[in-house]
């Protein structure tokens, strides 16, 4: 087989496999078996297409082959009974009828199987990490080694996690049907959580040179778009997509040429991705129109959108950002949100206003060891001219971060304070 055809088959597989596995899961009610059948079909394609050529409808071809394997499997299973019992003629007839009914069920193609598969992979019977791993496996077409690398675990650990996840779904007899009402809302929340987890795994990585990182963001955004196209009535879906696309629009500006982090307000906005900003703002608009303004993703996307809309850093609408953080602190109370809110307050109303807010957080146990707390406090102290305290806080922050580049930045700022700057 030529390399070109190999890559073409790989591309077709990437396009078709989620649909294929979803359809087969509906038939077999077993996502592990469905994946095996789909793999069998891929092997058949790799064998046959080099001589027979790529079929006109490769997806349908793969599905037909996989279904045939499914039927062969079913046929083989009852055969085993023959050794245990005498089979009468009537038994054969009923077997044929059952086979026919099975055939018919194979062609019953109602509803969106891909969406069902996504909801199944994010079932609460699985731990969040297992949901993310299984989702990446089924939709991201990432190999076990890649997924393991993405989550900084060993390949064998990840392989076990995925196998166990599939077994758990089978054992718990998780239904391959769209949940309704409150259960649907809960499951959708889990799907969104998993997608955002994958995105953040890629986005907030401290090692920027790893190629896996950007591709995780890409996969998460693709999942978000799949969801937005297939569940277009849910505001939170559009809000999450907006949040991811707006964050990702800054990817190229977040580090300098040597890989050092560049703070948001110092980024070269010409390097922000306009297509992603435009898409993100449109998705946010859709979420708001659908009545989702107070969802946690919409509020966060709203904050990122304030930055995206500002042509220069000084044009940022900090008062609006403070208002959005106020709302976010209501729906998603967290000391990290409070800390970010304090930063916004300092930008909108001055460092002196924000200092007491940050100092109130000093006792918070959840922020113990969180280097951004002293780092923000140091910045505020520097801005109000309390240089000695600021230097001390920058040093403390530097000693708390594990990221060497960030540590360098904090040390430099401490040195600035020492010279009264």
């Amino acid at each position, binding site marked *: 087989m030529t390399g*070109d055809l190999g*890559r*073409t088959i*790989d*591309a*077709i597989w*990437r*396009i078709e496999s989620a649909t294929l596995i979803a359809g087969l899961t509906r038939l077999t009610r077993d996502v592990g078996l469905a994946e095996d059948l789909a793999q069998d079909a891929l092997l058949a394609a790799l064998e046959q297409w080099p001589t027979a050529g790529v079929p006109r409808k490769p997806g349908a071809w793969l599905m037909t082959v996989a279904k045939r394997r499914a039927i062969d499997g079913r046929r083989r299973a009852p055969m085993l009974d023959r050794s245990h019992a005498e089979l009468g003629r009537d038994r054969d007839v009923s077997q044929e009828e059952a086979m026919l009914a099975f055939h018919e069920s194979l062609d019953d193609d109602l509803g969106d199987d*891909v969406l069902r598969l996504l909801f199944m992979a994010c079932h609460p019977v699985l731990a969040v990490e297992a949901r993310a791993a299984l989702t990446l496996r089924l939709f991201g077409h990432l190999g076990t080694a890649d997924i393991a690398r993405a989550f900084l675990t060993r390949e064998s650990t990840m392989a076990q996690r995925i196998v166990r996840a599939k077994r758990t779904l089978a054992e718990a007899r998780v239904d391959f049907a769209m949940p309704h009402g409150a259960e649907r809302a809960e499951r959708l929340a889990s799907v969104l959580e998993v997608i955002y987890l994958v995105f953040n795994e890629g986005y907030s990585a401290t090692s920027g040179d790893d190629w896996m990182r950007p591709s995780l963001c*890409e996969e998460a*955004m*693709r*999942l*978000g*778009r*799949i969801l937005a*196209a*297939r569940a277009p009535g849910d505001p939170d879906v559009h809000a999450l997509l907006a949040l991811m696309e707006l964050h990702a629009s800054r990817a*190229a500006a977040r580090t300098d*040429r040597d890989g050092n982090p560049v703070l948001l307000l110092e980024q*070269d906005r*010409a*390097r922000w991705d306009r*297509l992603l900003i435009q*898409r993100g703002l449109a998705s946010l608009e859709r979420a708001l129109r659908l009545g989702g303004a107070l969802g946690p993703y919409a509020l966060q996307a709203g904050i990122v959108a304030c930055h995206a809309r500002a042509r220069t850093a000084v044009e940022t609408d900090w008062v609006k950002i403070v208002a959005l953080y106020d709302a976010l602190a209501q729906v998603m109370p967290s000391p990290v949100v409070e800390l970010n809110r304090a930063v916004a307050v300092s930008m909108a109303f001055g460092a002196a206003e924000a200092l007491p807010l940050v100092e109130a957080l000093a006792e918070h146990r959840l922020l113990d060891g969180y280097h951004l707390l002293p780092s923000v406090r140091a910045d505020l102290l520097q801005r109000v001219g309390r240089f000695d305290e600021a230097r001390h806080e920058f040093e403390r922050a530097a000693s708390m971060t594990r990221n060497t580049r960030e540590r360098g930045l904090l040390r430099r700022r401490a040195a600035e304070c020492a010279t009264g700057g």
Partner: protein
Amino acid sequence: MRFMMMMIPAVYQQDTPADFTPPVDAVEQMSRYNQELQQAGVLLSADGLHPPATGARVRFGGGKPTVTDGPFTESKEVIGGYWIIAARSREEAIEWASRCPAAAGDMIEVRRIFDMEDFPADVQAAAQF
């Protein structure tokens, strides 16, 4: 990576009148295709262009640019619209282009879009404004 799929329709290769609109069934088929791209999570943007008869070409010959109004009789390959898709490989982009319900004689040119990182450092620096 991002790709632009540029549609060069057969109908724009002829002398298409300025008020040309595509037939309803062709639009329906194309909408289904766009929906397929959307449901696969790959579609980022898509637009259709008015016939070349309503366009203009601005040519640079060294002095003052010269403007020619459409239609452009001298060139056969005129873009009628484009899609921007996020694909994981060139082959995937080509596969998506191959699935377009295009008419006989249509052509789609598939081109990868530059990322800032694709440029050398001095070009990246020059791109700042």
